[in-house]
């Protein structure tokens, strides 16, 4: 009897731990861009890069039907890579691209824009990084697609844009309406 219980318990434990580990394999917990709440329930203040005026998030996402908020910095190399995609997106009529300059030096940021072109209709600065945290960002670069009318986040990309993400962005903007 005792022998039996030992055997059963060992088998039971092995089976349970097997399934726990199996379940763990399918789930990647760090870096989950899943949105818990897509509703924009915050309204931060930020200063413009090219003037000393302050603005709020709601003011920024007021024009047109969609906004892309792109978090970038001149010291961030992947931001350079994705810049051409942003310049490309600029041509879409329904879309407004807003840049958040993350923890950057003002002179370098302006140089970056001068060198690579300006896809943004407005650029605000985030010297302490707090505004990016309010947006639920992890770092740079990060791109958030917002529906301006419903004030909801449609899509969020962590890391630089590439061909695949670019195509997906265009498709979402085309289909939503």
């Amino acid at each position, binding site marked *: 009897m005792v022998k039996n219980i030992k055997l059963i318990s060992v088998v039971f434990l092995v089976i349970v731990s097997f399934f726990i580990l199996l379940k763990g394999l399918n789930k990647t917990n760090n*870096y989950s861009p899943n949105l818990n709440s897509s509703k924009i329930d915050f309204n931060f203040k930020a200063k413009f890069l090219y003037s000393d005026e302050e603005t709020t998030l709601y003011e920024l996402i007021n024009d047109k039907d969609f906004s892309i908020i792109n978090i970038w910095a001149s010291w961030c190399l992947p931001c350079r890579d994705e810049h051409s995609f942003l310049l490309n997106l600029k041509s879409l009529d329904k879309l407004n691209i807003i840049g958040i300059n993350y923890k950057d030096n003002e002179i370098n940021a302006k140089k970056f824009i001068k060198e690579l072109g300006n896809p943004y209709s407005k650029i605000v600065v985030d010297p*302490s990084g707090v505004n990016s945290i309010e947006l639920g960002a992890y770092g740079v670069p990060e791109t958030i697609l917002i529906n301006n009318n419903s004030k909801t986040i449609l899509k969020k990309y962590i890391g630089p844009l590439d061909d695949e993400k670019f195509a997906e962005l265009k498709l979402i903007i085309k289909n939503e309406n």
Partner: protein
Amino acid sequence: MKIKILIFIIIWLVSFFNFSYADNSEKVDQISKNLRCLICQGQSVYDSQSDFALSMKILIQNKIDEGKNDEQIYDFLKSKYGEWIVYDPEINKNTVLLWVLPLILFIFGGILILRKVSIK
């Protein structure tokens, strides 16, 4: 005598100011120790010096200054970054096994021991 009283009052005021300051930053430490630094490997926000963690600490300080309590700050961050950001997992259908399994094993072990004792 008057000067002594004056000095005493000044020191008393200064110490009071320091106390209130220390109290506040301790609170940031306490909250940030319970938060996982999402872009670091196995570090809390408190331990990390990454840009993400530094910003997070400023944000927590701002929220405290706004008069938010611990619960509200955790809830805010959970709504932005998900359950994963807090070290203390809530009981829900995904984590129920995590909470219940040790209890089951404990009871199972207890039964084993009891059986062994009663057989002898």
